[in-house]
């Protein structure tokens, strides 16, 4: 997680902006149900009347109302109004009306007076509803009798009466209602528009940032891996490094994007929705029940199904590996008539897989119906309990509908947060793998003040070199000392694991020696910059590697190669025939991994690459093995000519005795130690290991 935060740091402002935008977005989204509630309650039920005291009422109506007001309070109420005589017009609630009778029009607001008016309004309303004569003495008692139990509902009732009062004044109730609904609707649209704008802006910033972070991270990982020496490289496998640079980064990008959108959104949404829901504490407990049921279902899944996921993964791997066995061993399986045995093996795993898969699926499938049921049941229960609240005017119908929507948001947000909790650890695996790469400390570094090597050829010497892989107990090379002078060809031979390829890797500092030192022109190669050291060396690897591009780009390999140098390299490496064969010649395309040329051709081209620039040292790590004997021979002859001319030093690792027979110095290795050094003839006489290798390849007469 630290890693992600570190990469997000430069984008802190943007992240904050995204948080702010998300907040706004959530607010807009969650205000919509409020407005809908307004339309339903105020707009539809109460005819667009939102206040519980009127803006205007006829003198007649006012008198009725004042009937139920104590004498002392009457003046307070009347102070809010101005009496307008019949025949004149005034503007009330955006409507201009010419009054047919005397009308009280509200001129100033007074909360206290508003509160004073509510009860009288309800009484007047009830008297009308019940046909009670207000002038009768027991009118007030009668009315309060019918209002018994409705004490909570006065506000709503007052609004219903106000609508009638407005009609008496001559206002169009319909216009009031329609304009209320319409304004509210337009407000909703406006808010929705703000919401979508904010959301798009947020998405823009979030995707831009997450892509940018991923790109930066990808680059950092790639750069880091490029800076690795073979020592660090071998800690990871190549394929693992490839996945880390590719797949893992993609996963992290998805994670960041999710974090910046959904993971931010769900808690904000959840909390805001909870706040809205909390306005109705009498029914919000339903949510706790619903979430509780969901949690229970999840626990069931976590306990019974999740542990089996691993089993399923293992079985899938087994299925794969048996199938691979089928394919790899096809010849043998058929030759030994073992098809049945293999099929039974496969069926065994396949059946187990079916069994476990069925078990897990049967449990996992509970989740869907349970979720749907919980959501539906929640809606229904809300309706039931909300009805009770509506009955006592603690809630309106619109609010009930809004509440249902908030409740859904709360549950969904909860679900989302939970899912996120499951998902983060999975993505964390990728984060950890990236961290491992980035936190790897490079062991091979350039010296602070590198020594400049002379231009001319020099002697390369191993001085009591011992090499151990980091962390390994056994040494791969022990106490290796030898010298290679300019113009000399030094060959290494030995069985696999004897350390011959490792020696070669120490020269360009792909690994550093554990003990002792390697010197060139008398300088420890660790005191030289790697770039300069590498510029002294031409290397052809054991496994010939070609890169996507063409033949020319493969030989140049990032260097400035003149036409002449190119020609020479091609001639020595016996690659002319390859180029002639191709229509496009040097520009013939090479596909990834060099799959469109044969093994021998690949090897020759990779040798051409090593020879394309004049170097002081050439290294051929078993580079001649895929060549047929004749080509091998011609190549070595041409190579000898070059060395004769340039006096460069050549190192050859080989398997075939015939390849190295004529080397100036053959170094025989066994289990990391030098067991023989000298020319072919001498070694045949005095080196037992060399003799063994030679005899296994050539008969005695042939060696003689």
């Amino acid at each position, binding site marked *: 997680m630290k890693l992600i935060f570190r990469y997000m740091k430069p984008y802190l402002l943007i992240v904050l902006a995204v948080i702010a935008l998300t907040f706004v977005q959530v607010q807009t989204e969650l205000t919509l149900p409020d407005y809908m509630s307004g339309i339903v309650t105020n707009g*539809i*039920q109460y*005819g667009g009347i939102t206040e519980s005291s009127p803006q205007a009422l006829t003198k007649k109506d006012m008198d009725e109302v004042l009937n139920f007001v104590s004498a002392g309070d009457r003046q307070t109420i009347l102070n809010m109004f101005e009496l307008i005589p019949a025949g004149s017009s005034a503007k009330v609630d955006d409507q201009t009306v010419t009054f047919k009778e005397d009308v009280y029009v509200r001129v100033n607001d007074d909360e206290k007076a508003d509160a004073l008016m509510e009860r009288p309004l309800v009484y007047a309303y009830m008297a009308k509803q019940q046909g009670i004569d207000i002038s009768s003495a027991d009118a007030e008692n009668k009315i309060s009798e019918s209002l018994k139990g409705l004490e909570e*509902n006065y506000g709503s009732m007052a609004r*219903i009466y106000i609508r009638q009062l407005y009609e008496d004044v001559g206002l169009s109730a*319909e216009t009031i*209602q*329609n304009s209320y*609904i*319409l304004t509210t*609707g337009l407000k*909703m649209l406006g808010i929705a528009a703000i*919401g979508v704008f904010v*959301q798009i802006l947020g*998405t*823009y910033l979030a*995707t831009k940032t997450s892509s940018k972070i*991923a790109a930066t991270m990808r680059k950092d990982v*790639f750069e880091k*891996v490029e800076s690795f*020496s*073979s020592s660090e490289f071998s800690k990871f496998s190549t394929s693992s490094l*490839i996945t880390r*640079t*590719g797949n893992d980064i993609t996963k992290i990008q998805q994670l960041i994007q999710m974090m910046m*959108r959904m993971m931010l959104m769900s808690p904000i949404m959840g909390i805001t929705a909870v706040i809205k829901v909390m306005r109705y504490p009498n029914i919000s407990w339903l949510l706790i029940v619903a979430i509780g049921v969901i949690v229970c279902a999840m626990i069931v899944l976590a306990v019974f199904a999740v542990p089996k996921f691993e089993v399923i993964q293992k079985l*899938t791997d087994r299925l794969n*590996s048996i*199938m691979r066995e089928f*394919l*790899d*061993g096809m010849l*043998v*399986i*058929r030759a*030994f008539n073992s098809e049945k*045995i293999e*099929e039974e093996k496969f069926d065994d795993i*396949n059946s187990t*897989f079916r069994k476990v*898969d069925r078990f897990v*699926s049967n449990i996992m*499938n509970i989740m869907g*119906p349970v979720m*749907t*049921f919980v959501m539906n049941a929640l*809606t229904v229960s809300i*309706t*039931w309990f909300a*009805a009770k609240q*509506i*009955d006592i005017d603690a809630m309106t*119908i619109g609010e009930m509908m809004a509440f249902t929507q908030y409740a859904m948001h709360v549950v969904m947000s909860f679900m989302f947060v939970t899912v996120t909790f499951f998902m983060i650890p999975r993505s964390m695996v990728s984060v950890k793998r990236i961290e491992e790469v980035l936190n790897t400390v490079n062991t091979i570094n350039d010296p602070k003040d590198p020594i400049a090597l002379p231009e001319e050829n020099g002697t390369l010497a191993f001085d009591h070199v011992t090499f151990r892989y980091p962390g390994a107990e056994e040494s791969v090379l022990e106490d290796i000392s030898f010298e290679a002078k300019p113009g000399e060809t030094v060959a290494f031979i030995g069985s*696999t694991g004897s350390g011959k390829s490792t020696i070669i890797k120490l020269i360009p500092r*792909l690994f550093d020696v554990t003990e002792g030192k390697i010197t060139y022109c008398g300088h420890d190669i660790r005191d030289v910059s790697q770039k300069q050291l590498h510029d002294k060396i031409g290397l052809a690897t054991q496994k010939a590697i070609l890169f*996507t591009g063409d033949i020319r780009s493969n030989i140049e390999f*990032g260097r400035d190669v003149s036409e002449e140098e190119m020609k020479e390299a091609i001639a020595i490496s016996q690659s002319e025939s390859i180029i002639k064969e191709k229509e496009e010649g040097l520009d013939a395309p090479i596909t990834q991994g060099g799959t469109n040329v044969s093994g021998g051709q690949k090897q020759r081209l990779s040798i051409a690459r090593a020879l394309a620039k004049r170097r002081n040292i050439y290294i051929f790590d078993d580079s001649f093995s895929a060549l047929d004997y*004749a080509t091998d021979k011609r190549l070595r002859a041409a190579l000898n000519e070059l060395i004769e001319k340039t006096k460069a030093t050549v190192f050859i690792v080989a398997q075939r005795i015939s390849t190295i027979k004529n080397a100036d110095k053959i170094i025989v290795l066994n289990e990391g130690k030098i067991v023989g050094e000298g020319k072919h003839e001498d070694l045949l006489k005095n080196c037992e290991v060399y003799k063994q290798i030679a005899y296994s*390849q050539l*008969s005695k007469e042939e060696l003689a």
Partner: protein
Amino acid sequence: MPPMRIAEKPKDFKGTFRQLASYIKPYYARIILSLVLMVTSTVMCIYGPRLIGNVTTLIAQGILDKYAGGSGIDFETIGKLITTILAIYGISALIDYFVNLLHVNIAINISYKLRDDISKKINRLPLKYFDSKTHGDVLSRVTNDVDNISNNLTSTVSQVLNSMVNIVGVLFMMISISFKLTLVALIVIPASGLVAAFIVKKSQKHFKAHSKYLGEINGHVEEMYSGHLLVKTYNYEEESLRRFDELNDELYNAAFKSQFYSGVMHPLTGFLQNVGYVAVCLIGGFEVIQGRMLIGEIQSFTTYVRRLQQPISSIAQLMNTIQTMIAAAERVFTLLNEKEEEKDVKDPVKITDENGNINIQGNVTFENVRFGYDPDKIIINDFSMYVAPGKDVAIVGPTGAGKTTLVKLLMRFYELNGGAIYVDFKNIRDYSRKDLRSIFGMVLQDAWLFDGTIKENIRFGKPDATDEEIYEACRLAHVDRFIKTLENGYDTMISEDTSGISQGQKQLLTIARAFLKDPKILILDEATSSVDTRTEQLIQDSMEELRKGRTAFTIAHRLSTIRNADIIIVLDKGDVVEVGDHVSLMEKKGFYYNLYNSQFEN
């Protein structure tokens, strides 16, 4: 937001579908039952919101009635309604679970069957088939493709049906509430569909670019990492980084744009939905005021509008899923429909005598053999030769000359394009494959061992062998001592990541396997030089031992083997160029002479 992917299209949708149907056939009854149940549950569910709307109306009317001094909200009726709705939802949840169970189990059974069929099919396919296919390709059919079918087969079909029932049902409910409002809703929904389609179209380009650059950058990374040694020593890092940056920039651009477009889809369609929602609230509101609609109906209606959108967008997605699934099924079926090996002859030649002992001398005759992996590219034109029992035959030639082709023909892994091969003067086609192959023993260069103990791996040569026989075979193969040095001896597990057993030792184990089988005719592929000296000597010794008294075909890399062979077959570019023994071939001063001598010259 699910990523928008470019669905691959199957070539033969109908044919594949028909074949897929044949797998579903045993479950038709269950499927029909499940579909009936599903429709029932969906219809029940669709009715829910309507009933809740009724409750709301009852509440609204009740409260107004109460204000007017009436009896107020009718909690009794509401209670009854609520119980009914809860029951409906409860039952439909149970049905849903039951339907899920049915579907998943059918899918699991079908994928089991598909995997089983593939595993059996593979053993009946001619080897030729695998020449043009990578193992990864076949493997991905067994896992990815079968998984795809298993995950989507029943669920997509039921979801499509479900969505359609939902659309029809919801539309019906909507119209029953208000025709006018339904029209309003129906204007908005296609509009959001259009917006979605527009965005998909716009973004497709970026998604394609994204996968293109992702592929390219992965390719570059792969190359640079596998060639790390060269990158280092040739100071190629800067150049490599420059190229990486180029691709990374493009990738960033494509990633950002494609993500943005797909991220924008949701808010935009959401906005249109909100517009529709507001429109419904408004117009519905007016309808209620004018008494043409009840207040609860608006509530039901808005619920339905939301419900209608979901199946419409999911159908589009489902169509994609179905297409990819059928494409996956097509790949699986192409494998399953592939032409199998020719059937064995009806009355195969017996290889055993009355006592059940193998009665084969080991005569091998090639008669005008003509063969090419590709019939248009014949590589063995006309090859004839007789090999008497017990003779040593060495097959030599440069790498890639097709040395293994001859032995593959001998064991009838491939069919000839002309001529015939005889074992004991009977055409190999007249034997049953099983019998023919039981005559041969084979040791390949790249020793094949399976996950299992050493003992199991050796017993592979003769399933009914006793432990003593196995030990004896290992002694003969000079591997007994080595096995005993292992911690678990003969019970040591061999798997991909087994360390401590070298390639050479693995080959010794396969030699032991061949000893155990005790074949009449041997096919040996000598190890190349990647084996250490001592083990190599052991391999040569035990191969020598194994050859004794058997007709042997050895793919030779070693001069000692070649020189001592009774017959040397020299191959070049797949063609048999010379046949004879060492002395006669050397006298001929032809291809063999040059090949042989090139090893010593300097």
